[in-house]
Each structure stands twice: as structure tokens, then as C-alpha cells.
């Protein structure tokens, strides 16, 4: 009955209470949304590469190597010579090794030269392999496999011709050697979606008439002639390595880092991802802090509302007192109301979160490659909601204590 009366009292003050509930709801939705994006981003970040034990590149920073080899962000400062690569590949600890050659682009997408082993060994999201949505692995020298986003945004299908540009954001195109799409990969949510994949030899082939980044004037080697040439790469950008036994990872890493012929760097993808997330994570923490502050603000708003309602409700409290309610019961009543308000806000926030997710999920997925799963609320979310309700109860103690004192002093008489 008291619960019903408290609820009725809240409903009677519908507008102010509604606004408070709305404020709490929005803040909770914001907080949960930030949490969702944060965990989603972290997960999809960590899911970018798996199953690879080491990444090798020219000596630079580990984050930089990770960024260009996996995320296709930034550029390699140096290449790894083909000799060093072969030297590495012949080491007994190595189970598999996949070379990567970067530096060209197609429209806004990066072109990556590699071998067919890439499709076998590159894994994402805890050991998932790349799958073909359409077509097959490149077979011919001028075949290419494109990522899902590439096909989507450029409207390519299997069999379409594409022209690769030299360098990045460059308009000098390798016009002489048009490629043909042989396969389109399924969506992965990783940078592979935005990559045009060709063979290592193809990378060599399109640079036949080029030297030091510029076209050799007047020289155009016909395609037929290129096909006859030795297209063994002279250098690679990076290589992905899987070792025979996990125990050998560290000794191999050490050996590569101390490779005498050339300055190389081997990194553990997991460690480098952690390191990178540590940098990105500051923004994430700041975002989280801001959304916590928003929740706190909403709760303080509720406290202010309770405070301002106290005066007009002294009559109501006097009635309760006259009926035999102790000042403690009045304290409890106000806290109960605050709990109901905060709980309504929390539930509203949850509703808004799912509504927002429902609307924004496809947009975020296509715009940022970030997939936010719509799961039923987990324990973590339940805890957040519970914390909001508890915080609401605690915050309401301050005006409730004032009501307690007022009702002690007023007794049944309301003096105003």
C-alpha cells in the first residue's frame, strides 16, 4: 500500500518526475551506449588478428609496424629484403610465413600484395578464417581479391576490371596493367574489408616500368612480355609468422630482432594490440568519465527536484505523521520514491539504449566497421543499472534527512 501510495504520489507530480526520469534515462542510455561502443571497439580491435604468432617488418616501433601491417594505417619506413625473408622462411621454428607488400592503392583502398597462404593463415575473431562471399582466390597474375567494403562501396562484382594506382592517394595509375576481380571476401569487420589483395608477383609486375617511385619515361612493357619476366619480389613490407610450437615464439622473436644482416623487428600481435589500445584507451577512459558525470548530474537534478518539492509536501508529511508514521517512515518514503524514480529512469535508459542500438547498429557497422551486438542485458549492464538506482537512493538521503528533521520539528502542525 505504501509502495502504491508512493507511486501514486509520483504520478501526481507527473511532469517534474517525468522530466527527472527522462534526464536519468538519457544519461543512463548515454552511459550504457558508451560502454557498448567501448567494449565493442575493444573487442573488434582485439579481434582484428588472431592465430598469428609474430609480425616481422623493418625496424621501427612495434605500434607502427602493427598499424601499417594489420590496420593499413601509415606507411612502412623501410622494406625487408627478399633475401632476409627467405632466410627467415627457411628457419626450422617457422610453421608458416606469409609475406605482405604494401604501398599501392585503388581509389581510397589500400592494395596489398601477398600469397595465397594469406587466405589460409590470416585469422580474425578468435580463429575465424577468411571466407569468400563470391569467386575464388586469385589465380592469374592480374587477378585480385577484394574485401567486402571495397566491393560494396565501389559496386564491384567478380570479373570487373580495376586499375591500381601507384602510391597512396595518388593519381598516377598503373593503367597498363588492369586487374580483374576474381573473388570478394565475406565481411570480417577487420581492415581486410577495405583491402584490395593481389599476388606478390603482381606488385612486381605493375612496377616493371617504374624506378624509385617514378615512371621510367617512354618505357611501356607489354603485358605479354611482363608475364615472361622473373617477377620474384625484391622486397616485402612485412610478414606474418606462425611458429611450430608456441614455446619457440620468444626465441624466434629474439633471433629476428638480432638478425645481423638487416635491422628487423618482430612483434607479438597481442602485445602490440594491448600497447596500441593503451594509447587509444585514454580517450575511451575520458569518454567513460564524461558519461559517468552525466549520470551524476542527472541524479543531482533529481536531488534538487526532491528538495524543491519538500516544502509543498510538508502537508502530506504532516498527514503521514498524524496517522502514526514515524519520521523514519517519512525518510523511507522519500528514499523509496527516489528509488522508484531512478529505477524508472534506468529502465527507460535501457529501453533508449536498445532503441538507439536498433537504429544505429547498421549505420555504425557500415560507417566504422564496428559491429555492436544487440544482446540481452548482461550482468555488467544490470550492475550499472543497479548502481544508478543505489546512487539515486544515496543521493536522495540528503533531502530525505531534511524531511526527517522537518517532520520531527513540525509534528502535525505545518508552519510555513
Amino acid at each position: 500500500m505504501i509502495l502504491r501510495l508512493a507511486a501514486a504520489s509520483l504520478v501526481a507530480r507527473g511532469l517534474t518526475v517525468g522530466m527527472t526520469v527522462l534526464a536519468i534515462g538519457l544519461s543512463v542510455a548515454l552511459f550504457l551506449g558508451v560502454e557498448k561502443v567501448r567494449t565493442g571497439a575493444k573487442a573488434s580491435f582485439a579481434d582484428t588478428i588472431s592465430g598469428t604468432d609474430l609480425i616481422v617488418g623493418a625496424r621501427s616501433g612495434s605500434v607502427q609496424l602493427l598499424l601499417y601491417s594489420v590496420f593499413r594505417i601509415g606507411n612502412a619506413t623501410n622494406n625487408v629484403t627478399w633475401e632476409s625473408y627467405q632466410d627467415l622462411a627457411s628457419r626450422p621454428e617457422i610453421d608458416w610465413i606469409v609475406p605482405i607488400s604494401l604501398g599501392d592503392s585503388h581509389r581510397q583502398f589500400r592494395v596489398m600484395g601477398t600469397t595465397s597462404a594469406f587466405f589460409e593463415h590470416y585469422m580474425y575473431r578468435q580463429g575465424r578464417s577468411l571466407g569468400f562471399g563470391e569467386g575464388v582466390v586469385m589465380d592469374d597474375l592480374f587477378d585480385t581479391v577484394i574485401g567486402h567494403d571495397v566491393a560494396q562501396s565501389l559496386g564491384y562484382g567478380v570479373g570487373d576490371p580495376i586499375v591500381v594506382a601507384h602510391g597512396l592517394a595518388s593519381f598516377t595509375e598503373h593503367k597498363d596493367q588492369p586487374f580483374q576481380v576474381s573473388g570478394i571476401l565475406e565481411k570480417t569487420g577487420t581492415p581486410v574489408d577495405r583491402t584490395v589483395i593481389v599476388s606478390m608477383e603482381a606488385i612486381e609486375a605493375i612496377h616493371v616500368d617504374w624506378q624509385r617511385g617514378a615512371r621510367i619515361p617512354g618505357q611501356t612493357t607489354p603485358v605479354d612480355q611482363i608475364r615472361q619476366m622473373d617477377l620474384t619480389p625484391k622486397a616485402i613490407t612485412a610478414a606474418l609468422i606462425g611458429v611450430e610450437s608456441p614455446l619457440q615464439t620468444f626465441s624466434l622473436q629474439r633471433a629476428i630482432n638480432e638478425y645481423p644482416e638487416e635491422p628487423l623487428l618482430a612483434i607479438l600481435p597481442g602485445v602490440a594490440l594491448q600497447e596500441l589500445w593503451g594509447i587509444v584507451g585514454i580517450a575511451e577512459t575520458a569518454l567513460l568519465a564524461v558519461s559517468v558525470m552525466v549520470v551524476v548530474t542527472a541524479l543531482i537534478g533529481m536531488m534538487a527536484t526532491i528538495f524543491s518539492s519538500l516544502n509543498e509536501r510538508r502537508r502530506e508529511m504532516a498527514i503521514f505523521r498524524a496517522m502514526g508514521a514515524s519520521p523514519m517512515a517519512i525518510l523511507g518514503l522519500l528514499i523509496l520514491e527516489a528509488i522508484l524514480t531512478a529505477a524508472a529512469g534506468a529502465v527507460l535508459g535501457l529501453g533508449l539504449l536498445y532503441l538507439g542500438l536498433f537504429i544505429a547498429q547498421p549505420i555504425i557497422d557500415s560507417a566504422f566497421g564496428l559491429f555492436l551486438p544487440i544482446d540481452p542485458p548482461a550482468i555488467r549492464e544490470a550492475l550499472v543499472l543497479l548502481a544508478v538506482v543505489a546512487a539515486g537512493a544515496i543521493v536522495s538521503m540528503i533531502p530525505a534527512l531534511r524531511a526527517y528533521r522537518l517532520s520531527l520539528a513540525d509534528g502535525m502542525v505545518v508552519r510555513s
Partner: protein
Amino acid sequence: MGDSGIIELKDVRFRWPGRTSFSIAVPEFSVASGETVLLLGESGSGKSTLLSLICGTVLADSGVVVVGGTDLKTLSGWSRDRFRAEQIGVVFQQFNLLPFGSVADNILLPLRFAPDRKGRCTDARREAEGLCRALGLPEGVVESKAATLSVGQQQRVAVARALIGQPPILIADEPTSSLDETAQANFLDLMFDQVKVQASTLLMVSHDPRLGERFDRVVRMSEIVTIEREVA
């Protein structure tokens, strides 16, 4: 002052905390069980303070307040609240009801705090309906929201609430001052009927001496209460 007094005050002094300029002294006042007493006094005569003392919402600084044979000073704050709920039904001047609750909610509210009164009702809801009927309220009124009732109806609901579960004492603080004359008479008739039925003790406060003829006894505030005001 006889031992049979259901309300007895002796040598009571009280000063509102934080208001040094106002204090009251009640040398002696008592109401016998089953008696109906009208307290006459203008506003500022200490009526509200006296009622608060009897109800135990405030404690006397000195002297004794005995209600139903219990010295209120011997009770803790919590048991005084419980004691009030059990012993006393209260009707205010106006705004008696929680406007957002139904009439039934309002009438049944004191039972929530008074288990003994609740125990006396075999079917509290039926009892509430019966009281409403006896007080001349329209049939089915218990379902209505309190705020939708007229002032006169609200006052009657307040009487029903004060009487449910038959507490021995009914205290009414200017219950008729917000009603017009015919409504006043009507209201008092109905209230007195119920007080007689339940054999309750009635202590009513008013500034209107014309009401006095219905009561067993009329007491002027100035006869029992001394008020001290310090000029600040």
C-alpha cells in the same frame, strides 16, 4: 483531576525549539473517557501546540502528559508514533487527505501504522465503506480519487479515517472552518453520530463559540493555557 481522565496534562511547559519567543504552560487539563470537549480559542492561542503535545509529536519540556493511562514521556519516539496511531484519530482544518490516493487508500492509511486498530476491523474495506455510508458520502466513493471530492466530502472522509478501527480518542482541529454554515451543521451531526456509536472521546478545537451546545463541556484556551511571548 480524576484518575479516569483519558487525557491528562499537569504542569506542562513547552517551548518550540529554535523559537525562544513562544512558549506555553498548561497547569492542568484533563478530558474524561467518552467526554466530548470543545476547546475555544483564537489563532495563536496555543491550540496547535496543545494538540501536538497530546498527540505526542512533541514532548513537554517539563510536566506530565498522560494519554490513555500512559505517560508519553516514558515512550520512545517510535513507540509514541505507534501509540498515537493506535489511540488517536485526527481531523485537520483542511487538506486532510493525500490527494493522489483513492478515498479507500486514505481511510485505510492509519491501519498501516496501527496493528491493533487493524485487528479490530474484520474487513477493513467493508468497514471503510460502512463509515462512508454512515457519514452520508455517496455510494462507491471509496474508489474515487481524494482530490476529486468537494471540501465537505473530504472532511467527512477525514472523519472516517480518524474513526476506522475505533481509536479511543478523536481529535479535530477546526474541522468545520472551511465549510459553510449548513454544511457545518450537517458535518457535526454526522460526526457526533459516529462518536456516539463508537463511544469515542472527542476533543475538538474551534474559534466558534456557537458550536458549544453540542458538547459535554466547553473550555476556553485562556482558562487552561498561559502563553509567554518575549518581545524580541
